[in-house]
């Protein structure tokens, strides 16, 4: 291996990256775009849920409870005069739930603290239905406590749950999504971009010109690996800065560990990209293969959006060969929890195995020949 040759190949790659706007777009514009969409647009939280209130027998107590609901950021209550009307509203989709305070609400609350409130939730969106149920419960308990302290009365509430949310006390899904998103972005830069640029060399005929020079295959592969590695690290830096300073996601782990594990993941993704590019010599096919085999699994099977534990067993086994799975887990702990070694070590080991595998395959399959 000659340093002169490697340097020349890397310099060529950098010049191409700078002058060809399409690779810059994939590496920097797309991440910013994705981060903005997920940061601002997509949220798994339920906020300002429209809810119908039906009160059979208004008293001071019911008014107080409803006021509590009004104050909560989660609900947007609307008053209906009868249950039938409220049910119609659910049918029409005007509201997502109905809260019914029966005529014995005041009496039972004061006597036993176990007043029945009836909640009917539109269960079409199961996830949201569960969230509404929990929120109403929480609000109810909170109100009960306040009432009790305010009046100096001891209310015999059945069980008062003292909920403490760890790692993400604000329960913001954004804090949870953005670290995962960084993994997706790295997959994109690593695998898709590498696969595309090597295929492009075949398509434009530049590869044939390079092949007949005394350059070795290790030099050709490193010439691709190093520039995109640097670019990927740039991408992760940009994404981390955006996550912390724009979206206020906490970064509780060490920066060094973040960069170290990112480097490992990036090498894995680049390895996958190189394997794809060795097998296909056409940009269109390379893009398709890269999206289907790296980007989509990273999206669906990494635990970024969908919990791996709730997947069927076969799919769960399959997730072990998705490098993003390990990286998403590591990132989520680094951002939200800190340097949790029992999480970071095994997951890093998983990535290291995949990384070695893909890079050796690329080296093995790449030939300085046309046939």
């Amino acid at each position, binding site marked *: 291996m*000659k340093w*002169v*040759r490697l*340097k*020349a*190949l890397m*310099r*060529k790659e950098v*010049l*191409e990256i700078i*002058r*060809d706007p399409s690779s810059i777009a994939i590496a920097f514009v797309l991440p910013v775009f994705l981060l903005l969409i997920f940061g601002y647009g997509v949220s798994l939280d339920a906020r300002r849920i429209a809810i119908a209130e039906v009160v059979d027998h208004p008293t001071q107590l019911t008014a107080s409870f409803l006021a509590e609901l009004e104050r909560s950021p989660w609900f947007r209550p609307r008053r209906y005069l009868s249950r039938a009307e409220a049910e119609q509203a659910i049918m029409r989709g005007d509201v997502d739930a109905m809260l019914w305070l029966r005529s014995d609400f005041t009496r039972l609350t004061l006597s036993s603290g176990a007043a029945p409130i009836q909640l009917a939730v539109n269960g079409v969106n199961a996830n949201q239905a569960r969230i509404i149920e929990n929120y109403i419960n929480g609000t109810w308990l909170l109100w009960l406590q306040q009432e009790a302290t305010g009046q100096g009365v001891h209310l015999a509430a059945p069980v008062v749950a003292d909920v403490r949310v760890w790692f993400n006390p604000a329960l913001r899904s954004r804090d949870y999504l953005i670290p995962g998103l960084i993994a997706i972005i790295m997959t994109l830069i690593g695998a898709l971009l590498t696969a595309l640029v090597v295929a492009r*060399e075949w398509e*434009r*005929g*530049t*590869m*044939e*010109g*390079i*092949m*007949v*020079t*005394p*350059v*070795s295959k290790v030099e050709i592969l490193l010439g691709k690996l190093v520039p995109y590695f640097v670019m990927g690290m740039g991408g992760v830096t940009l994404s981390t800065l955006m996550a912390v300073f724009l979206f206020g996601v906490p970064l509780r782990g060490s920066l060094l560990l973040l960069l170290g594990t990112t480097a490992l993941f990036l090498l894995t993704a680049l390895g996958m990209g190189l394997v794809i590019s060795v097998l296909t010599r056409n940009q269109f096919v390379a893009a398709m293969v890269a999206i289907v085999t790296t980007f989509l699994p990273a999206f669906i099977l990494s635990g970024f959006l969908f919990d791996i534990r709730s997947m069927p067993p076969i799919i769960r086994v399959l997730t072990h060969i998705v490098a993003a799975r390990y990286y998403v887990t590591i990132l989520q702990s680094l951002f939200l929890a800190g340097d949790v070694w029992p999480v970071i070590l095994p997951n890093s080991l998983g990535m290291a195995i995949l990384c070695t595998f893909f890079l050796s395959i690329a080296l093995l399959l790449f030939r*300085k*020949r*046309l*046939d």
Partner: protein
Amino acid sequence: MDAIVVSNLSKTFGKGELRRVALRDISLTLAAGTMTALIGPDGAGKTTLLRLLAGILTADAGQVCVLGHTLPQQALALQSRIGYMPQRFGLYEDLTVEENLELFASLHNMPAATRESRYAELLTMTALGPFRKRQAGQLSGGMKQKLGLACTLIHPPELLLLDEASVGVDPISRRELWSIIHRQVVSEKVTVLLSTAYMDEAERCDHVLLLHEGEILAQGSPAELASRFAGHAFRLRAAAASLRHLQAQLAQLPAVVDAAIQGDGLRIVMQKAEAPVLEGELAALGTPEVIPSRLEDAFVGLLFSRGPRSRAPLSPHAQAADADEVMVEVKDLYRYFGSFAAVKDVSFSVRRGEIFGLLGANGAGKSTTFRMLCGLLPASSGSLCIAKVDLRKATAAGRAKIGYVSQKFSLYGALSVQQNLSFFASAYGLASERRKLRIAWALEELELKRYATMNAGSLPLGYKQRLALACALMHEPSILFLDEPTSGVDPLARREFWARVNSLAESGTTCLVTTHFMEEAEYCDRLVLMSLGEVLAQGTPAEIKERVRRPDLPTPSMEDAFIALIEEHEQSSRRAS
């Protein structure tokens, strides 16, 4: 000393039904310091042989020894001593001229001390000095090819392998490329092996190898090969107006291998050293005189002996016969790209059944003019009429009357020949009955039946060209546009192609064509010569040649005329600016 020693070399591609023999038991020796041309029809195995010698393909059987290195084991050591220029030399288009040179210098591990002087030398040789900082993607086709050659020559190599280095390049750039290659042999003692579709290039080499279906059909010096056909070549004078018609008749005679239009007469090559027996119309032209044979005669003759190819002209399809009707009318045409005028003040008109040529250097504005005529690009100003339809107002109506064969053939590679035909027939809106008729016509007349079920992408180049022509003729257009249709196609396939175009013109189809083969310009009734977006000369081939006739150049060829007129114009416009 021998630079290349090859014995019993064989190479096949694919498996099972798709198995294709590229080279069959080839043995050859090339002496160091000589220049050898590799000629042969498309698919003869020229590119495969060059790739094998460059060490980027491995042989199935046989020994290959290049510059003393045994392949494939010592490929890496060999590759630092050779220069190989593939057919499509991939320059990095985002890199400047200088950066491309630097990349290849580094890949060859050139010492830094010698680099600057080598760059300067190569940039002077290729006249690319003024464009040193320009990105390769913004160079003209000819300049790109010269830069590719410069990158190949960087280290400098001891052996140069060139795969059709001058294909798709205009005559001026081609002459420059050739003089660079020639200098390598004369002053640097480089061994050169090049494949080419131009017989005049092969004629200038020391040695010629004629490859056919993976075998060496003949080899020797160009003079030696030509002498095998001494006495086979004849010349017949005739009036310019009837040349095409006579040529078609001559080509039909059984003993005639080849008939071509040349200047004010016809050039005939016979199967045996006997004068052709002429009857009827042809007999009136007088006795054919014997002329010296040349390499091209040997090429055509030797391949003819291996099974004559089809020369059947197309059966004419019905066209209204009004010969004086103006089919294409271009007036004061301009096209700007930003502030750059790609086409300036171009005017010409073409009558029904004419073959009209657009000639010019790379970047002269031919393709831009063509695209405007086909309604693919709006004109900045001026008027364009196609079959009396004003293209500025009714593009779709104009397009229905034209057929277009583009340089890259625009076929669907993954569809079979039959499916391509069917698709284009539907695209032109042919009703099912007529569609069936036209597809049958195309398969029959263009002899595509054999390949009907093969995918267009895997057809030999000559057949791709036929298929592209067939697709463009599906709707029986009254005007046919041919954009460098013969680029990279071997002489035989080119002949066949022109025979077809001729018969189309005879039956009243108007043909507009661009080409870099100057001898093909002789087939045109009239032509325009373009340079830097302007029309330099317009007229019949004879009129254009007449313009450069001087005492020291009594019978200028089309190529002489082209080079003289364009250089004169470029110089005067440079002085003006």
